[in-house]
């Protein structure tokens, strides 16, 4: 769906040129959720701006569904949440959302109901809609931004740090909206520092460092490269659990007095481990298999 080929972008004037992107190539399949990860200044926002057609790469090409990134038909299906939220301070939340609804070609007669629905889904109370945006807290502004991005039910989403500056409820709401869009078959590109969230929603992750795409890892599906399996047992029983597991031939280590981490992250290993613990009469409170992004990230840093 999105094809990026050998894209380079340089900023700056004659003295101080910075190579923000250097020969980046990647592909995002339809319906895939891609995460962009990397240190600050690595070029992620630049890449996102290029994907949105706000910046033109000096070499290479970007196509979205075979068209230019700023093609109007692409725009009609796009939802964008920028990192820096700039609003018309004197607009009310409702006016702002309705404005975006109409801009995206929505039926003006439905503006009011769509605005309320989008706000509700983003966690904005209806009373807040009547207030001016200048009265909104950072968290509320973020929710308004999410509502704006989702209001036209886009099947192409670009999110730049969607969970920054939000409270945990806000983070969870964003996650739910992403998963919901995913369920609809939307293609999502997500730029985030919050590895835990990225783990939960992305199918694939690419690492960008100093303008280069250094690594790509699949988090789900058969191609998933690294997962970690953890089992939670009653407090103090972790050591016993480890012993029980090794008796069954499963390698594990206690990461706290109630958490056990399996050496192998694969899911069928996890179910065998749970079975072993149950047979050993050790209660299992939780058994999870997650993508181990932090591990990947830190490992990459060591290089």
């Amino acid at each position, binding site marked *: 769906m999105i094809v990026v080929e050998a894209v380079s972008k340089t900023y700056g004037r004659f003295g101080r040129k910075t190579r923000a992107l250097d020969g980046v190539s990647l592909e995002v399949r339809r319906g895939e959720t891609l995460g962009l990860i990397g240190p600050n200044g690595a070029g992620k926002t630049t890449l996102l701006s290029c994907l949105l057609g706000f910046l033109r790469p000096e070499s290479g090409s970007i196509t979205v569904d075979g068209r230019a990134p700023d093609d109007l038909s692409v725009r009609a299906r796009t939802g964008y949440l920028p990192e820096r939220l700039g609003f018309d301070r004197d607009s009310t939340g409702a006016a702002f959302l309705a404005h975006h609804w109409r801009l995206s070609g929505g039926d003006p007669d439905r503006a009011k109901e769509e605005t309320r*629905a989008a706000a509700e889904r983003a966690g904005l109370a209806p009373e807040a809609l009547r207030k001016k945006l200048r009265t909104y807290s950072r968290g509320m502004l973020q929710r308004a931004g999410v509502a704006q991005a989702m209001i036209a039910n886009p099947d192409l989403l670009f999110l730049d740090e969607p969970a920054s500056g939000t409270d945990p409820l806000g983070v969870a709401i964003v996650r739910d909206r992403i998963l919901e869009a995913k369920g609809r078959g939307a293609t999502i590109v997500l730029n985030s520092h919050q590895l835990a969230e990225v783990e939960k929603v992305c199918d694939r992750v690419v690492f960008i460092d100093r303008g280069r795409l250094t690594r790509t890892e699949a988090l789900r599906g058969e191609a998933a490269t690294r997962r970690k399996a953890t089992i939670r047992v009653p407090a103090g029983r972790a050591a016993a659990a480890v012993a029980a597991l090794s008796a069954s031939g499963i390698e594990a280590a206690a990461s706290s007095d109630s958490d056990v981490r399996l050496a192998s992250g694969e899911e069928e290993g996890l179910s065998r481990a749970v079975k072993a613990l149950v047979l050993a009469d050790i209660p299992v409170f939780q058994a999870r298999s997650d993508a181990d992004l932090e591990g990947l990230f830190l490992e990459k840093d060591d290089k």
Partner: protein
Amino acid sequence: MDRTEGLPAATHAPVSAGETRKGSQSKVSPILLWILLAAVLLRIVTAVTDSGKGKTLVSWIAADMAATAARAGSRPILYDFTAAWCAPCHILDREGWNDREIAALVNERFVAARIVDRQKEEGKNTPAIAELQRRYGVEGFPTLVVASADGREIGKFTGWRGREALAMFLRESRAKAEP
């Protein structure tokens, strides 16, 4: 777990799936080029049709800039008080200001400003014009007034009396303005 259970599910397709617009957002419509062409055409047409009235070899300066320009260049101001309906003024334009020698004399030795009277057409003039006419006692057209940069009247010439008379007036006024 969906924190938003109970809300209407957002299931409908992207909004404008029906009438999709195409083409790059940054495309500039070629219609604009035609509009530009039309404006250029209009400019040329108006320049041509309007040139009958008052195009001369003399470089006229805007009246409000005359004083400053005169001071800066140590030259006297030449005011041409004229009106659109005045026939002798048209003759003055054709045979005075379009005369190469006279125009050169004016351009080099004076700061020339044209004051067009609008009393017949509009009932009154702007305050600035009315003041100038009052200051120099202008009662008929054309009236030429040579003044110093600070507004002192040096010479006055009314009507069209032929090329030689005009040239002589200009030279005399210039001489008087010297010290």
